[in-house]
């Protein structure tokens, strides 16, 4: 019966094609710089025939023979209206001009623009473009993609100065972060104070919090898809800025008679240039830089090549004590091929690497670790007809992980050379998905992904007494490391362990009337790589580890229902979503776990589970001199780790406990007010429940010291976090005819100087011997000024 239902879907679409129908396809670009526009709307006036451009700016629209008015629109751009006689298949390219009045406005690409926004089954997705992000107030004026998405419902961080972000109660490593399709393993600079994305090089970002399309896989919480600009294909342009922390410069230019273009963008901090002048800091160096590159070349009408790359690095040297550097490097070569006006393809060869190195002079130790992956991906998009679009593809990722190599730095060093086992794995995936308009009101999105993970040999694998890497000591009531029974060597050609999962994805939308709809979705996804971190905040030293004999893949099932409403001709939108997410095989760490330099990580962990649920409300004002949004999230995120094979009750006595990312209430308010041609003001306000932590519930004397005893895990909370930021953008604009355009951004972060607790630590005062609680807060009130220019 199930199959009958599916066959009906397909048949109904094909039957429809039996009428005389024709297609219009093409690409939509920005008139001024030739950037392709993603998510632009193309529709036939007075009909339900409409579509939006894909990630390459491509669209295809099929309708019955006839005369129509074609409307092409994109928020922030002037709309194009054109008469078309649809009596044959045709290709039409459009170039939209930026709406002059909209120049200074926050351009918010709402869920989907206009007609299709409430119709499309895709839900739980948030989009921001670079312009929006740049207008939001930022710490020290440093525009930050990762911080801006935290203003959206369901997205939080783990406190100021912590790396990563958390989506719907998930961990930082459960987000798939892609920069032009390449995996970014660490999104932070300066240990999380800033993010690796240079807003000057970014076109737009899309965050899937749920209802993840079948083409994505490998992480269980979310997908953050960041796309770099292609580069101006019309004229040479230069843009940049000077801020308190870093300076930026980006150059863009057409290549080969506008057949191609390139973008090179760089950003570097320069605090270290002044450090030698300060007596205390003269031997220290703290800096970061990013380099973004993108170029493309149009071979002919149907073939285009893209090459993009990113290289970023953080360096911090603290006098002679510690030298540390880390960073991501990625590259992607893509070939876009248009077979015909309905069939579109993309082949990508992708490389990414994250590495870190620490030299500790005081123990004469040099530590290097890295993770690399090579990825081949082929995707096809087939516009079967106006009611059915099919995507299918295949992907293969080869991982090579080097969890650590320790070298002595001198002859006299007491350190022994040590190299932890290199780990190798292959992750393959196949997917097919369809976007299917069943009736005028009902649309479906359904897909199936099959992923397969092989942990490859080339290393020794320990086996444990009674097959228990972790053993519960019944007497002492603690978990202890299991004893290694033997070690088996697996050759490079051998497979240590294989996992394969089917991941169904389904979503539907029902349009209740012109302005409102309801949607529902179910997503299953699996995650084979895990970031090992037993600290409150993710640090650059945390090591990624693949699934294998002992560490199982994480599997998540997420259900979501939403209600969407447009008010006053889409001037306001309301989005209401509720979700429930269950994740199996979420690992947690035994008490006293030691992760650094450990070859047998399985002796430190137990397999548990996590669950999260919540309600998200988003109200946006999309037009006018005042634009912005209010986001509210009410949620719960918990985990439970039972003893399982190791025996015993598990962590926290086997009870559910809050994850560190649990935030009961999370309110974000973001607004931009355009005062006049020269001035615009913007503001953020954030309020969220404090992070769950574990406080002492008693003390006792031991070794002459006061030792704290602790209660249930994460059963206490830091005080609530809240702050207000404001900024003002001033565009002198004295000579509007000149190409040189500049702006000043004045900002104040944390206006009322709230001392938000990043942490509260408990300890004994050295001179009084009394116990005290010490709060560390990171950012108080911080003014900033940034100068940006464009030429």
């Amino acid at each position: 019966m199930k199959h009958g239902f599916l066959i009906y879907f397909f048949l109904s679409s094909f039957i429809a094609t039996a009428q005389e129908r024709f297609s219009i396809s093409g690409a939509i670009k920005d008139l001024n710089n030739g950037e392709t526009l993603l998510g632009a709307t193309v529709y036939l006036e007075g009909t339900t025939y409409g579509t939006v451009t894909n990630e390459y700016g491509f669209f295809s629209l099929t309708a019955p023979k006839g005369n129509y008015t074609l409307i092409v629109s994109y928020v922030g751009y002037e709309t194009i209206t054109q008469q078309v006689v649809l009596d044959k298949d045709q290709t039409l390219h459009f170039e939209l001009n930026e709406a002059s009045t909209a120049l200074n406005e926050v351009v918010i690409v709402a869920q989907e623009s206009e007609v299709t926004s409430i119709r499309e089954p895709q839900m739980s997705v948030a989009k921001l473009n670079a312009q929006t992000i740049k207008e939001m107030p930022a710490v020290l004026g440093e525009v930050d993609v990762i911080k801006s998405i935290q203003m959206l419902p369901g997205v939080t961080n783990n406190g100021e100065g912590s790396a990563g972000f958390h989506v719907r109660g998930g961990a930082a490593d459960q987000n798939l972060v892609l920069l032009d399709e390449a995996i970014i393993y660490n999104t932070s600079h300066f240990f999380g104070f800033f993010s690796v994305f240079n807003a000057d090089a970014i076109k737009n970002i899309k965050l899937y919090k749920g209802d993840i399309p079948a083409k994505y896989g490998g992480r269980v919480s979310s997908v953050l898809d960041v796309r770099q600009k292609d580069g101006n294909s019309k004229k040479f342009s230069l843009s940049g800025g000077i801020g308190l922390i870093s300076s930026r410069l980006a150059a863009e230019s057409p290549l080969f008679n506008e057949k191609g273009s390139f973008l090179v963008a760089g950003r570097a901090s320069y605090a270290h240039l002044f450090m030698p002048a300060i007596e205390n800091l003269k031997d220290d160096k703290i800096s970061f830089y990013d380099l973004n590159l993108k170029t493309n070349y149009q071979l002919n009408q149907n073939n285009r090549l893209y090459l993009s790359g990113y290289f970023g690095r953080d360096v911090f040297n603290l006098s002679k004590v510690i030298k540390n550097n880390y960073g991501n490097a990625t590259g992607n070569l893509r070939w876009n091929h248009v077979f015909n006006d309905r069939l579109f393809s993309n082949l990508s060869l992708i490389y990414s690497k994250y590495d870190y190195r620490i030299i500790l002079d005081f123990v004469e130790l040099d530590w290097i670790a890295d993770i690399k992956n090579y990825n081949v991906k082929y995707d096809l998009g087939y516009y079967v007809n106006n009611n059915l679009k099919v995507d299918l593809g295949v992907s293969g990722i080869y991982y090579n992980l080097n969890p650590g190599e320790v070298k002595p730095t001198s002859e006299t060093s007491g350190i022994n050379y040590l190299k932890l086992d290199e780990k190798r794995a292959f992750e393959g995936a196949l997917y097919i998905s369809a976007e299917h308009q069943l009736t005028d009101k009902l649309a479906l999105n359904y897909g199936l992904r099959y992923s397969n993970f092989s942990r490859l040999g080339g290393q020794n694998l320990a086996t444990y007494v009674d097959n228990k890497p972790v053993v519960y000591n019944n007497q002492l009531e603690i978990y202890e490391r299991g004893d290694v029974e033997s070690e088996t060597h697996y050759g490079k050609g051998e497979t240590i362990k294989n996992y394969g999962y089917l991941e169904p994805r389904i979503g539907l939308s029902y349009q209740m009337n012109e302005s409102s709809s309801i949607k529902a979705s179910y997503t299953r996804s699996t995650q084979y790589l895990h970031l090992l971190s037993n600290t409150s905040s993710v640090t650059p030293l945390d090591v990624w580890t693949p699934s294998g004999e002992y560490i199982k893949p994480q599997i998540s099932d997420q259900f979501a229902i939403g209600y969407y409403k447009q008010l006053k001709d889409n001037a306001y939108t309301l989005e209401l979503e509720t979700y429930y997410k269950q994740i199996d095989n979420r690992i947690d760490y035994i008490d006293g776990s030691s992760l650094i330099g450990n070859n047998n990580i399985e002796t430190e962990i137990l397999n548990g589970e996590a669950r999260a649920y919540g309600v998200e409300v988003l109200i946006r004002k999309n037009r006018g001199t005042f634009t912005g949004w209010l986001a509210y999230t009410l949620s719960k995120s918990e985990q439970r780790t039972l003893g399982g094979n190791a025996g015993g009750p598990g962590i926290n006595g086997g009870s559910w406990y809050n994850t560190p990312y649990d935030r009961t209430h999370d309110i974000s308010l973001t607004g931009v007010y355009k005062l006049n041609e020269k001035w615009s003001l913007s503001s953020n306000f954030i309020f969220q429940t404090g992070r769950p932590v574990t406080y002492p519930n008693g003390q006792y004397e031991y070794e002459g010291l006061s030792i704290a005893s602790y209660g249930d895990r994460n059963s206490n909370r830091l005080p609530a976090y809240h702050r207000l930021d404001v900024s003002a953008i001033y565009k002198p604009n004295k000579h509007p005819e000149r190409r040189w355009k500049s702006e000043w951004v004045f900002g104040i972060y944390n206006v009322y100087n709230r001392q938000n607790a990043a942490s509260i630590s408990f300890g004994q005062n050295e001179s009084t011997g009394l116990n005290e609680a010490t709060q560390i807060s990171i950012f108080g009130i911080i003014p900033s000024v940034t100068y940006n220019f464009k030429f």
Partner: protein
Amino acid sequence: MKKITILLVGLVSVLFSCEEVIDVELQDGPVRLVIEASLDWEKGTVGNDQIIKLRTSTPYFDTQTDTSVTGASVEVINLDTNEVFVFQDQNNGNYTTDAFVPILNNTYQLTVIYNGEVYQGTETLLLAPDINTINQSIEDGFDDENLEVNVYFDDPEDEENYYLLKYYEEGDLLSSLEDVSDEFVNGNEIHDFYEKEDDEDSGEEAFVPGDVVEITLYAISERYYNYIKILNEQTDSGDPFSTTPVQIRGNCVNQTNQNNYAFGYFRVTQYVKEVYTFE
């Protein structure tokens, strides 16, 4: 690795942060028996005199309660020789003996009977290495303007070894504990150092010439190492790079009522001790 954590936190605080002592309301957990049974035998002595301290736990900020436990029965038996050592109640929470006989590689069992409940723990006595050298330096350590004391000792290659180093500056209120394993340095001469810094908030002062520091090196069991490592990690826990704090469970098991477990540890160690005066 705690040192790396200290550095990370240091870095973050250098950048922007602000520290202040605040009032926090805490819940109170159950009151438990605390067994500080540290039978430590200084190498080259007879080691007959030993003290076992029994106390109770209190609320975290409490400074008033008399925590000494009296009226308990305390005994240690050498499981290899079956010799029994009875500890006398001094009515101040201390239980003492002057007849203890430490024998290397022998296993000892502690039995405490308190409030009708029996607590037991076992531990093996291990050989402590000698300290090869102690010297001082400025340039090494975390801060190249502060004095630190360096300690060097040899680690045997054939087995896994675990050490506890206790540094105590004369006149200070608190001592500093350092847990060391030979994981990365097996078979080598191990180097450890202790450095202090000027810190107005915590009242710490950097070493100056003339300061006297007492250095004690204990050979400890793997289980005690795991215990003291968590204890060390948690003595100033709560910063963003620290691990989630947990209840530290020692080796004294309540045989009568397992839920009413005791804090503290029964350790039997050999140690060497040196006193160093900064020049």
